[in-house]
């Protein structure tokens, strides 16, 4: 066991996978000598050379399109999009191509590739360095979308993503990079894609989240305990395919559910989680399922007052959870 930050866990996962399998390589903007703008690939260029840690031109469609081709021809690329906000130019390649290769060839082609994208706010990143993109991409069949919130899950899910036969969008919350420290197991420490994790057991209500919001929910649960409210915290970890059984289980256990995400509300992940609960755990509910999300404004503003107004935080989660507990 070692204590690591999220960014260290991500770096270690890439290093271990590149060491293990010569077909694994990294491509993205500034990933080479710079080591990535967040230093996620720090040291990899020196260790593996410029053919396996490729500084791409400043063109996201190129990064993903080239990764697709390399995956067709026996490689396992890890494509880095510098900020999730800049993924839009690659959407044609991701949605129309990567997500459909397997289906449109009835399994003749498949793409073992990972697209890493730092996402989320709370870092004064404004409109174009703060966005949440999980709902947009989770709507696309053929893609897998993961969003770990702890160092152990960050490492274990990235390693699983690299070994997966299908394209995985790996979302790493940039606010958690150096904020969250935790135990990372020895050995491979693989975390399966598609499995949620109960991060805190509870009996009165359930908080369901992922990424940075997981941490905020854990903090809120601690404070709720002081009020005598026992909150369970379910970490989705994988958004698509969603672990519906785990969602249903916690809803049935507590009967009260609050879903939290910092992506905006309309057609967001909370809507999907709640639909699953309504379909499968309706009889167990003691209160309407609630959601706490960012508002439906285009993106997060730069000014700190506006940024805080946009982001869910521990206080907002507490207020909503108390409302739910009192229902």
């Amino acid at each position: 066991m070692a204590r690591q930050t999220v960014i260290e866990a991500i770096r270690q996962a890439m290093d271990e996978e590149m060491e293990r399998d010569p077909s694994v390589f990294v491509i993205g903007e500034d990933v080479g000598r710079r080591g990535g703008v967040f230093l996620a690939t720090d040291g990899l260029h020196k260790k593996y050379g410029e053919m396996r840690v490729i500084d791409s031109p400043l063109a996201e469609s190129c990064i993903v399109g080239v990764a697709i081709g390399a995956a067709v021809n026996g490689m396992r690329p890890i494509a880095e999009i510098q900020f999730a906000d800049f993924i839009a130019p690659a959407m044609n390649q991701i949605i129309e191509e990567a997500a459909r290769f397997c289906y449109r060839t009835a399994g003749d082609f498949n793409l073992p590739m990972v697209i890493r994208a730092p996402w989320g706010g709370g870092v004064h990143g404004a409109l174009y360095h703060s966005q949440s993109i999980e709902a947009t991409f989770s709507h696309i069949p053929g893609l897998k979308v993961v969003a770990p919130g702890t160092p152990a899950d960050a490492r274990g899910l990235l390693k699983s993503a690299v070994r997966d036969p299908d394209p995985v969008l790996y979302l790493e919350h940039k606010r958690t990079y150096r904020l969250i420290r935790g135990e990372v197991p020895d050995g491979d420490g693989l975390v399966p894609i598609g499995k949620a994790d109960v991060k805190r057991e509870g009996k009165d209500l359930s908080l369901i989240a992922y990424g940075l919001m997981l941490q905020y929910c854990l903090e809120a649960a601690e404070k709720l305990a002081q009020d005598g409210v026992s909150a369970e915290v379910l970490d989705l970890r994988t958004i698509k395919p969603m672990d519906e059984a785990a969602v249903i289980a916690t809803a049935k256990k507590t009967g009260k559910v609050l879903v939290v995400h910092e992506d905006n509300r309309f057609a967001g992940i909370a809507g999907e989680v709640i639909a699953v609960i309504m379909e499968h755990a309706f009889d167990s509910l003691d209160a309407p399922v609630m959601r706490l999300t960012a508002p439906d404004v285009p993106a997060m503003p730069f000014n700190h007052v506006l940024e805080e107004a946009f982001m869910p935080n521990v206080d907002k989660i507490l207020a909503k959870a108390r409302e739910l507990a009192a229902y």
Partner: protein
Amino acid sequence: MATRTQEVTARGGQSRHRALGLTDQAALRMYEVMRLARAIDERMWLINRAGRAPFVISCQGQEGAQVGTAAALKPGHDWVAPYYRDAGVILYFGMTARDQMLSFMAKREDPNSAGRQMPGHYGKRQLKILTGGSPVATQLLHAAGIALASKMRKEDAVTAAYFGEGGASQGDCHEAMNFAGIHKLAVLFICENNGYAISVPQSRQMAIQNVADRAAGYGFPGVVVDGNDVLACYEAARHAVDRARRGEGPTLIEAKTYRFTPHSSDDDDRRYREAEEVALWRQKDPIQRYAAYLREAGVLTDEVEREVTERVTKEVDEATEYAEQAPDPSPDDLLKYVYKGEVG
């Protein structure tokens, strides 16, 4: 600016194919693949117009550019990333008339997609034919990625990526050529310039005469070639393949050609081009020109021509019959292959 291959007519010299290193047998095989591509295409239109299949998209008129360039590659070793007109390419790379008809009729045995995609969306891993979608020029980046993988493993495989002059307007075209140029990848970018992107003429697609001129901006050669002269296409591709195998990087080949049919069975080309223009280009039919050359060269005799016609007709007849009898996918198939791995 792009270099231009020497203007040569089909009757430019009796030993032209031999001078290019093609045996008589190889030259005849190219002819037969062109004939087969055309015959399948013509049959598809008949079946479509009889109301027995919903959609056709044609190779007619572009077989010379397709087969000429494909013949410079090694099927089974090199990769191709075709676009939707490239029947000549995929037939040269090992697909059959039966495969084409199964795809045309969207049957379960369709090797490209098991009846999921429209005709012309080719792909078969075993034959190193990349799967294609409908958004244009995306495959150029895939080709660069395939070639990158070949380079990483120090293999000498070449990847040929095909597109139209309309696709040349896409950002992916620029990004692919830029990337391939930077890394000196073994890619042939082959533009089949047929003058129209559905209805939009080249003059509204770009302000320049030659797509190939753009190669200079990516640091590799661009070549303009008569796309209706199959041997000229072969020659240009051969040079590009040799260059790529030597590790000297990509080449952009622009084959000037023309499509004889409307864009697809849902298009009416009388709305945007003159019948006289089509008729003029039909006189430059790459198959007729090549046949004339082969006759002149003493390779294509009446007897050989008859044999080719018989084989092609038989193949198309049998393929049509087979595909018509072949089963459709079942409703259960709808949910399969969203992912390769287990989910949930």
